[in-house]
């Protein structure tokens, strides 16, 4: 285990815990958590899971997706691997494997990102798909044709089918 990555993960974890306490005690508590992440066990800070909530007003509204985060020993020099466990219909996310195609999780990664900010970036990707690098070609093709109504209803269908349970 690399001590540098562990120290950094501990820092991030304690900062998150502090923030959660702050949220719970304040009026902001009823503001639904849009993204929440935590390590599966405190023994192993290199494997986290989390929940990403769909942005209100978009086709992903009302959905909650479980994600898993695998962190390399060389973190933060190298990006964490973020994968959707709950199936999601999105041009840049593989429907079966849950793999996410996002530049900041690949070539544009810098150490200034944190696990939380990376997950927020993934959430932002939901409402801002990039059709140039699709992992879900069918979804990307619908968007490419400009059929936003069709795309929205398709996404809504899958959101209702798979991601509705947690609310």
């Amino acid at each position, binding site marked *: 285990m690399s001590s*540098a990555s562990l120290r*950094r993960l501990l*820092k991030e974890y304690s900062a998150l815990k502090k923030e959660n306490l702050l949220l719970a005690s304040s009026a902001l508590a009823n503001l639904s958590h849009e993204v929440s992440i935590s390590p599966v066990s405190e023994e192993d800070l290199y494997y986290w899971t989390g929940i990403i909530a769909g942005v209100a007003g978009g086709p992903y509204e009302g959905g909650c997706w479980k994600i898993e985060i695998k962190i390399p020993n060389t973190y933060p*020099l190298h990006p964490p691997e973020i994968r959707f466990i709950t199936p999601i219909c999105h041009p840049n996310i593989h429907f079966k494997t849950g793999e996410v195609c996002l530049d900041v999780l690949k070539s544009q990664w*810098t*150490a200034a990102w944190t696990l*939380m900010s990376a997950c927020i970036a993934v959430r932002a990707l939901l409402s801002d798909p990039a059709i140039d690098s699709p992992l879900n070609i069918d979804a990307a093709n619908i968007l490419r044709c400009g059929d936003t109504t069709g795309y929205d209803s398709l996404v809504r269908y899958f959101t209702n089918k798979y991601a509705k349970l947690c609310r």
Partner: protein
Amino acid sequence: MSEVVPPQSDTRTCWICLGTSNDPPPVGSTSDWRRPCKCNLTAHESCLLDWITTSKDELPCPQCGTMIRVSQSRSLSLRLRRALERLATRTANSAFILAIVAGAMSATYTALYVHGMVSVFCVCSLEDSLKILGWSKDSQSLEEVMYSKLLAYHDHNISWQKAVDGIFSGWWLHRPSPVAAIPLILVLSRRNSVPANAAVNTALAITLRRKVSPGLNIADTIIYAFPVLRILHGALYRRYIVPQRLKWEREAQSANAALVEPEPIADELPLEDGVGPQQVQVDGEMQPNLVVELNGNLRRGNLGVIVNNQNITTNLIGALVYPALSGLVGDLLAKIFPKLSKRIQDRLVRSLIGGCLVVLLKDVFDTYCSYLLSRRARTRRIVDYTGSRP
């Protein structure tokens, strides 16, 4: 972002490890704080050096985009190596294009020639055609042998079987010669299959040698011993030099020596065991995107051995110029030590000795470069931003 503590009075936070100035500094490094860019980001120097990791001289700050500058000692040898690598890449590229152009041209020429030739034969009498094409009965090239036989057949001097035999007897001129296989074998022998290499080398040596001297003399002895020498050299190199070089290269990659996990890796490495120099491609001039790609391998410690595009071309050029270098060094040796040249009359033997010397020199130079890289990594410092901050 919640993780980034807002700048309180004098608490600094490293944007890489998120450690603050109240925390103990990262293990095994200096706790120097640096502000290398316009913005407010501060970081530990060792963290920044790990972030930059490669021999790249600068990288942009992720927030303000200011180039983070690194100062490091300059070295003539490293620059020479880099220049050689660049030259090799460029040479390889132009040679590749040249080969394609030459191949296309000769193929086109042959096709045109054959059509022209056939046209002449279609229109003129055989004798006239031969005159037009400038062929005589006692000439030697394939076409000429062919047509002298055809002519003889035409004149009812020989049977058609004899004519065909005669035509095919001329094929030795155009038969694929083992000489054309030399460059292929040189390149192929960079692969790491030792027995296959030895077999190929010996076969080539026998084929070529047989034409010069049928008997067994000192040159043959050396040639046949060459594969053994190579295996021996490869084994010794892997056993003693590679671990040290990898250690140095890893130190060069990570400024923080504590990150480097010492692992006995030499035996598992997919090393290239070639006849020429650069048996092991331990590349110090690694690009940052390669580091990212090697994400998983980084921990296992074999990040030094990378087959990237540049290494393939340097390898290729290295293999192809190896005979020329060997001959050159052999001749140089003879010039410098006239006594030696008197004792060793055979130029081939001198070239072989020269070849061995080339390999040894290359090993020494590569090892020295690895050492320089690690030493340079130790002297690497992040330069604070000196301009005015907004």
